[in-house]
């Protein structure tokens, strides 16, 4: 550590080194560590601020599991054995996020492979441009555009009706198709670029060698390209999963009336429910669950955490 620090100073000069270290430290502490610590602290407190401000700081202002208990079991007069609504939404959110991730992987791996190994020069640049330009549009606007596209009287229904595929419009929003499509589309770049980066560094000769030895395309991908792309696939999946599990705008705008995303419940506790401690507890549970899930899956697929950064 001391050696590393001396080298770092020598390489960048004292002033610049100190500035860089200070900036990174400030950023880490102020933007990441402190807010999370506050959230953690909140999550173990009573909501006296709203219920009875006079009890704040008094003998009743102690740490408690009441908020976590509420997530699991609901209010004391809940007749069910557990908090059916919140727990169901929680698991549905996680499963839906996994689904969105797998859908994005299936969609983006071929695109990334094509960009990295097949497309040449100008064509590849044009394709990248086509992928990026839609993201110049604000996320909310994109979500509303999907609503127009998928609505009961939307573009897709209009086309399908006019060519006679359907005789009744389908309410894609109610069926959550719009939500999954919107979430899936929102994060495709985060899936494509990590995979692209890794696959691009794969020696073309490896693909040709496998082909020369008689391998079919399916086997070349299974045995040569995908194992090589594993770090990129993991980092793409991690990002898409984390972000779609934590998405708020898309579920808010594209979600059907009966489907709730877990983040929407958190949002309600913070906002209309005026219960920050409970919202914090919910948020902490979501974050920890996602992190643990990602770590578990990485372990199953034998991906080391260091590889993801590549």
């Amino acid at each position, binding site marked *: 550590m001391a050696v590393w620090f001396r080298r770092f100073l020598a390489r960048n000069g004292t002033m610049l080194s100190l500035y860089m270290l200070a900036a990174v430290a400030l950023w880490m502490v102020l933007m990441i560590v402190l807010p999370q610590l506050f959230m953690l602290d909140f999550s173990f407190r009573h909501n006296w601020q709203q219920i009875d401000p006079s009890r704040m700081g008094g003998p009743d202002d102690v740490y408690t599991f009441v908020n976590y208990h509420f997530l699991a079991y609901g209010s004391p007069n809940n007749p069910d054995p557990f908090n059916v609504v919140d727990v169901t939404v929680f698991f549905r959110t996680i499963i839906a996020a996994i689904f969105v991730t797998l859908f994005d992987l299936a969609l983006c791996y071929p695109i990334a492979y094509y960009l990295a190994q097949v497309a040449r020069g100008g064509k590849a640049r044009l394709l990248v441009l086509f992928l990026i330009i839609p993201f110049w549009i604000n996320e909310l606007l994109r979500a509303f555009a999907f609503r127009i596209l998928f609505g009961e009287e939307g573009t897709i229904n209009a086309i399908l009706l006019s060519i006679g595929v359907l005789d009744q419009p389908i309410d894609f929003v109610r069926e959550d198709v719009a939500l999954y499509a919107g979430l899936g589309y929102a994060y495709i770049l985060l899936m494509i670029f990590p995979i692209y980066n890794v696959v691009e560094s794969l020696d073309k*000769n490896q693909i040709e*060698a496998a*082909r020369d*030895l*008689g391998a079919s395309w399916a086997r070349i991908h299974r*045995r040569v390209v995908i194992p090589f792309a594993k770090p990129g696939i993991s980092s793409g999946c991690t990002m898409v999963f984390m972000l779609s599990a934590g998405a708020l705008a898309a579920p808010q705008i594209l979600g059907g009336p009966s489907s709730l995303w877990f983040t929407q419940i958190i949002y309600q506790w913070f906002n209309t429910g005026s219960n920050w401690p409970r919202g914090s507890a919910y948020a902490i549970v979501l974050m920890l669950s996602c992190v643990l899930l990602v770590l578990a899956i990485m372990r199953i697929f034998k991906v080391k955490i260091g590889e993801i950064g590549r």
Partner: protein
Amino acid sequence: MSADVQLENVWVQFGDFVAVRDTSLTIQGGEFFSFLGPSGCGKTTLLRAISGFQEPSRGRVLIGGKDMAGTGPNQRPTALIFQNLALFPLMSVWENISFALEVKGVNKSVRRKKADELLELVALPGQGDKMVDELSGGQKQRVAVARALCAEPEVLLLDEPLSALDLKLRQHMRTELRAIQQRAGITFIYITHDQGEALTMSDRVAVMRQGTIDQVSDGTIVYDRPETAFVASFVGENNAFPGRVIEVTQGIASVQTKSGVLHAEVSAVSPLTSGDAGIVFVRPESVRFADPSALQNRLEVTVANQEFEGHFWHLVLQTAEGSVIRMSVMNDGERETYEIGSRIAVSFTAQGAIALAQGELAAE
């Protein structure tokens, strides 16, 4: 099993650029055949046309008498060893070697056994469980050969596979490859820009220049009886004396050059007649110190430099009119050195030299 490879009027074009021009050739089954040429001469493109990675623009490639048009590289009875070897870094050595069997759905114990046999063949016994990155350059080389042989190809194609190795290892691998070829008994087609490799290993060598084959023959003939000025200057070192042919009698041409009239054998394949523009080529090892009696091909020169290369002394000599002659003298331990600047006479026999029509010379 080994198969013939026939090329029939093969052309490969990339847009306006002609990489291979109207090439016809038959490579015999079981032959060790080399394509020798400078980079960019089209030899790798030709190899890719044989392996199936590049369809010829015109003409046909036949392997074992079968037209290969429309047959992909995974369906041809060929295996290619890449210049950078292209071993799979995420597989162990034995998995690399037996990949061709894995593709065919052969079960694991059989694959393992075959991989171990091949490791014996390439003199790497017991290294199957290592990862590729744990091997040295020469070992990787052998693994690449074993991996290709595992596909039981009838024709093995090698694209300058030794170029990344250091000199000693390269020389060793030449012998090794030749031995493996004889044990495996299959056709080897070898691509190289290194004439030493081509001459030591091959039954026959094709010298290529700008997409065409200049000469096909065995190594000694390519070296001793070049048919074009390019072959003479590309394969080995040669002193060139351009001039005009005065007369040709009994297979010996007299050529008027800046260094006087020189006499040299003419090529039986591409003969000269008087009046042609010709070049007399003399190998440095054919240049001798002149006897007082030697009157033919006698040159008065100044020693400009001398280089010591162990088994040879290389002398750089300068004629009065300024052309440079290289001369190699075997180091027999007795030779006295020649002072730089001293004046000596050298000569060569007409049989030790060859007169060819003027043409493109290999770049230095």
